[in-house]
């Protein structure tokens, strides 16, 4: 039920609306619940509303920590904020 999908903002439209791209599909969603996002940003969309901005640097750090876990578990979680 709480499923949400990371979508890229393509363009801003009138009101709080934006057109997003999700796996090649375009859809209009509401930005009324978030602040300070613009074209190119990834947002997490749930029932037609963006809930949060996705931080690309944090995502990269998480993936790096996952990759490190397979090699060196001691270093694995250093990229993850406590």
């Amino acid at each position, binding site marked *: *039920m*709480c*499923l*949400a*999908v*990371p979508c*890229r903002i393509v363009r801003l439209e009138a009101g709080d609306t934006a057109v997003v791209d*999700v*796996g090649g599909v375009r859809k209009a969603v*509401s930005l*009324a*619940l*978030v*602040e300070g996002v613009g074209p190119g940003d*990834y947002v*997490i969309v*749930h*029932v*037609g*509303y963006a*809930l*949060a*901005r*996705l*931080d*690309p640097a*944090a*995502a990269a750090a*998480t*993936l790096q*920590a*996952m*990759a490190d*876990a*397979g*090699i060196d*578990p001691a270093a*694995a*979680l250093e990229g*993850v*904020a*406590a």
Partner: protein
Amino acid sequence: MKYVDEFRDGALAQGLAQAIAREADPARRYDFMEFCGGHTHAISRHGVTDLLPPNVRMIHGPGCPVCVLPIGRVDLAIDLAIDRGVILCTYGDTLRIPASNGRSLLRAKADGADVRMVYSAADALRIARENPSREVVFFAIGFETTTPPTALVLKEARESNLGNFSVLCNHVLTPAAIVTILESPEVRSLGTVPLDGFVGPSHVSTIIGTEPYEFFAREYRKPVVIAGFEPLDVLQAILMLVRQANEGRTDVENQFHRAVSREGNAKAQALVAETFELRRAFEWRGLGTVPYSALAIRPEFAAWDAERKYALTYRAVPDNKACECGAILRGLKRPTDCRLFGTACTPETPMGSCMVSSEGACAAHYSYGRFRDREAAATVPAEAAGTAEVAVPVTAVRGRTGVAA
């Protein structure tokens, strides 16, 4: 899809699984509850259980709003659609929930009631604008993730004085449900359900932040790791929980920091506070009445509150006596312990709440886990097979081996 596919990478999953196996102490057990139905579904669908060592067990929690919605609330919606002739708008998830007397919203629709599935709360508002001569009720369900959109449509309805629109509110709260589980006698008295930590919800936490979980970590001495919904996120969170358990820490950690902050979404929180207030108590299917666990619409929005507008009175309806959903939601029993599972109760004909949504523990096991029951039955030694019931879940077999080792 970016930010989805890379978090499902098989090679990285193997690496994380090896790290968990290396760090998990074979001399002890680890029992972690994933609270959220989204995690339950991800764990089952992606076979996360198969990557874990035998002494690391995942217990499926009550975090599926479809599963915990009591029959009496669905009855209210069905009555509105049939007796009052309203256009009943609802998320698709609620359509198949079994209600009283073999009814459901889907059957009501088949019988001619105007039940419409919507993708978004905004769609319900649009339907009200397009049908000024009809009454439109939005059947709102969901945890903190889904509440802010409902708050927005309530505000919009009031601002535009939309008289033919109202909301039947069933929004529930995550922290209250976690407290109920931690306070339950099974968990408190070191009895049947040991809980060594929680995998915390992804998208609920984008709204409420990680701060509300600090209370459980502190008061109940349980570690919490907020995790994303992809299988690698879950594996990494399990690794973090294993590490906390080994070190005796009970911290709140945030694996999903690419979208979750400590403070959460302040704008959404303010909207929810403006439109909703706490209910003194609310019934959860499987957990019973839970104090201060749900939201009601504030009196300022009374004209758009379907409960006030139609003077609805809630009537509790008991579940089928043989249904084990209550015990399954608390981690006391597994789906295969239920006599109805896979026989009378299937995803096509759900009897209990855990079978209704694909996020329910029973539906997830039915769709993705039954092959393990068959494998386990096939590997039961010949001398034991005579006394064994039909199928022994492999997790149970593994659990015993794990303890013995």
